[in-house]
């Protein structure tokens, strides 16, 4: 392997391979695609949060001139509710019912039918001609309401403890004996928390273009996984996978929300029925109403510690909204919540609760921010009660190599302690605070994922290189691939082109998700490149007439291993490539593997806020995020992940929430009313990269992208407490909530 002293490209901020296209407007996103003869698909959505569909009459829509196809769930394969049909972590029983309602509509915005017509306007007119007879049912959105004995039941087939219920699942981890642990504690603090659903907020609405000719389908779409798109389309339509070619368009953000399909199978059916290419594109309002935010939640966390600051027991229960169909990310809080700490007695419990709003989709470290919010706020109170610095408390209890996590594993070498120490030593932690300012800290953990990856590395005739991987590049992963390939081959990174292959070009590759892409694809690219290097050495040996074992590869050249091997001038990659045909043919290698050993990632954040007491606005005025990333292959994009994750977490903490009206309909389905952080809301976000190499990875990589959204919720809450002396136990800490709390405090003080 490359030794540290002569590293040339790993750790360098190279220009990304797709960069020029993205700054000139040439990069092709799904909505930019067109085809001759293309028509437009639109979806009819339920106006009711909960209703039985008595009948759907599409005859008038079908008769409208310009309408080429109409579909309902009857055009999809029906998956019985009692037999799981898994694709990855998704279940096609629920996925198919989410993208087209069957028998019942389960949220306002739930698709009930779709049309394809020659223009968007005709398609919209046709939707108005579809007659749906609904039997309106009582509905429930709030997670606590949904668990009450008299709550409207969404699914007859879901039973909990033998009774019809909206609790669709439960997950529990136990380590040691919490009761005995709490008995040893000098300080025990127990608090309840509440969070609202928040949306991933990608700027690109879902879009696709599907063409079917001679029974073969081509799907261009914006997704986090072309193989996922192919698999789900195949399941829902019954087409074999070899009849579907899924092409990954450039993706305009996903954050987990594009790890599933909404439009592609619908467009595919419309294209099959009409014989025309069908384009579909969601409006922003549709994105908010009908694509997955993450869960709202209620939770209860209890932590017990001894006087010397040792945590002896911890307990947490989280109830998460799944939305219309099962699948809330309960493993996030239940597994990650207490993972930063070495605690002998832990009990965590999570419930997956269905309710009448759009089905949740993954959102950056799914569920873990909800877990850390509760745990890290209670940690702050424990530190205060014990009179210990909050980072010192974390350090005293930090998980390290050999710590057994409550969710199962014994940690290998991890970098959590390093993040806490770096935060303690950073000037930010000692910087003076101004009036109405406060400082908070919090930590966070995410599992990270490995899984299937494929790569192909080809040497061109002139010695330049093409690398193809199978993961949509959502934030600059092609730049990391170029760095790694150039490093291994010892050539300039500009000689390496990196492409994302479609499902017919590259072997199966799992989703861009779980912070897995750079981790896993680097393994496949490394193995492929190593095989290419072996071939290059063999070709040089052939040219020189010596044994391949007597050739070494160094700085982009083949050299004889030593004097015994013979005295030959080195052969460059370009020279060997030029002679490829006469020495055995084209040079290239492809590897497919299932990456294991992803290992989790930890971060610790420091947040300073300033509260405007007149307006109730909390502004983040300084923010520093410390994270163990294993090895930063492209540091600027690693920083970018950390900064972006922190910004999303700050939005979650301060402003973002789904608000429903009295009819069970989302009341803020626009970027104006769903307030994500804008440029003037944020300060610079300092990202401090800590590198504790992952011993199980050739370059030492750990996943990066998800950890940074985990700590901010509590970091901001703890900072607001530090500024005002008021603790908030629910999110978002938006101006009306802060103002009300300030007024109440003033009233109490006056009395």
């Amino acid at each position: 392997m490359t030794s540290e002293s002569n590293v040339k490209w790993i750790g360098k901020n190279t220009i990304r391979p797709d960069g020029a296209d993205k700054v000139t407007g040439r990069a092709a996103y799904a909505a930019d695609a067109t085809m001759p003869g293309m028509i437009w698909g639109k979806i009819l959505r339920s106006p009711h949060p909960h209703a039985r569909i008595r009948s759907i009459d599409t005859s008038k829509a079908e008769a409208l001139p310009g309408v080429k196809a109409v579909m309902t769930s009857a055009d999809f394969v029906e998956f019985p509710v009692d037999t799981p049909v898994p694709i990855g972590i998704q279940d096609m029983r629920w996925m198919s019912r989410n993208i087209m309602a069957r028998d019942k509509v389960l949220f306002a915005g739930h698709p009930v039918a779709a049309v394809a017509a020659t223009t968007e306007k005709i398609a919209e007119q046709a939707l108005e001609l579809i007659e749906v007879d609904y039997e309106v049912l009582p509905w429930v959105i709030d997670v606590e309401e949904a668990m009450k004995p008299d709550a409207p039941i969404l699914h007859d087939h879901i039973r909990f403890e033998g009774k019809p219920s909206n609790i669709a699942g439960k997950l529990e981890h136990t380590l040691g004996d919490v009761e005995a642990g709490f008995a040893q504690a000098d300080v025990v603090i127990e608090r309840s928390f509440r969070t609202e659903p928040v949306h991933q907020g990608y700027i690109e609405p879902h879009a696709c273009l599907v063409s079917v000719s001679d029974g073969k389908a081509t799907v261009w779409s914006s997704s986090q996984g072309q193989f996922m798109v192919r698999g789900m389309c195949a399941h829902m339509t019954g087409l074999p996978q070899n009849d579907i070619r899924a092409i990954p368009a450039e993706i305009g953000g996903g954050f987990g929300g594009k790890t599933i399909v909404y439009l592609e199978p619908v467009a595919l059916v419309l294209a099959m029925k009409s014989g025309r290419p069908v384009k579909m594109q969601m409006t922003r309002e549709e994105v908010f109403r009908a694509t997955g935010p993450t869960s709202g939640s209620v939770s209860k966390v209890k932590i017990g510690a001894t006087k010397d600051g040792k945590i002896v027991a911890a307990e947490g229960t989280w109830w998460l909204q799944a939305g219309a169909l099962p699948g809330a990310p309960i493993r996030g809080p239940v597994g990650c919540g207490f993972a930063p700490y070495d605690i002998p007695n832990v009990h965590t419990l999570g419930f997956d609760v269905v309710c009448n709003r759009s089905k949740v989709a993954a959102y950056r470290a799914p569920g873990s921010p909800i877990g850390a919010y509760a745990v890290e706020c209670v940690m702050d109170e424990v530190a205060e009660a014990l009179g210990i610095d909050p980072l010192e408390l974390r350090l005293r209890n930090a998980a390290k190599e050999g710590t057994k996590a409550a969710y199962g594993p014994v940690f290998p070498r991890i970098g959590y302690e390093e993040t806490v120490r770096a935060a303690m030593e950073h000037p930010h932690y000692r910087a003076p605070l101004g009036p109405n300012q406060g400082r908070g800290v919090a930590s966070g953990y995410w599992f990270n994922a490995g899984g299937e990856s494929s790569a192909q590395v080809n040497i061109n005739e002139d010695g330049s290189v093409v690398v193809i991987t199978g993961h949509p590049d959502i934030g600059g992963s092609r730049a990391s691939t170029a760095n790694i390939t150039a490093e291994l081959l010892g050539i300039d990174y500009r000689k390496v082109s990196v492409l994302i292959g479609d499902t017919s070009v590259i072997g199966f590759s799992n989703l861009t998700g779980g912070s897995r892409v750079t981790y896993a694809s680097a393994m496949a690219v490394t193995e492929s490149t190593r095989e290419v290097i072996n071939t290059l050495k063999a070709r040089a040996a052939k040219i020189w007439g010596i044994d391949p074992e007597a050739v070494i590869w160094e700085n982009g050249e083949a050299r004889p291993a030593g004097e015994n091997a013979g005295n030959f001038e080195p052969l460059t990659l370009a020279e060997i490539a030029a002679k490829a045909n006469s020495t055995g043919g084209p040079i290239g290698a492809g590897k497919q593997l299932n990456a294991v050993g992803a290992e989790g990632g930890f971060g610790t954040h420091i947040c300073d806020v300033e509260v405007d007491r007149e307006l109730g606005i909390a502004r983040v005025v300084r923010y520093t995020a410390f994270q163990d990333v294993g090895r930063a292959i492209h540091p600027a994009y690693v920083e970018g992940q950390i900064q972006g994750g922190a910004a999303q977490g700050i939005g979650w903490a301060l402003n973002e929430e789904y608000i429903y009206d009295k009819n069970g309909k989302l009341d803020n389905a626009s970027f104006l009313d769903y307030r994500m952080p804008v440029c003037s809301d944020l300060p610079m976000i300092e990202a401090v990269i800590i590198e504790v190499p992952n011993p199980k990875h050739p370059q030492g990589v750990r996943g990066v992208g998800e950890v940074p959204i985990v700590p901010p919720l509590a970091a901001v809450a703890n900072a607001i407490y530090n500024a005002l002396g008021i603790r908030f136990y629910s999110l978002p800490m938006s101006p009306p909530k802060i103002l009300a709390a300030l007024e109440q405090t003033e009233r109490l003080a006056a009395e």
Partner: protein
Amino acid sequence: MAKMHVSTTINGEPTEFLCDATDTLLDALRGPLGLTGSKEGCATGDCGACSVTVDGRLTCSCLMLAAEAEGREIGTIEGLSQGGKLHPLQQKFLEMAALQCGICTPGFLVASKALLDRNLEPTETEVRYWLAGNLCRCTGYDKIVHAVLETAAEMRGASR
């Protein structure tokens, strides 16, 4: 209803197109004109991904009717680089990794250029408020703001 005929100038080139009376400028750019660099993130003027300049003024093309382009000078992302050479902002965005997924990037570049055309010495606060109409969900804005400030500094140096 019959289509409307519009004569306009786009990125310095005389251009004609047909549109419906209800089409937005963004519809025309992305449809008949094939200029898909301007993106539709919301169609309500909240995200800035469709930013263009109209007679030099920064505008959300989703909030303007296509017919209103008659006789105007429209500037889009496709006109930012000249003769295959990237504008200093484009170059700096690449060098400083001021983009991740890239969907908001055309809008940020058009908006940033409109700022620097007016003010080559913006403060960080001025950059942040000028760009407050452009949403980015990937970067946390940090590297975008740095790239704009750095470009302004370089352009000031070059123009001295």
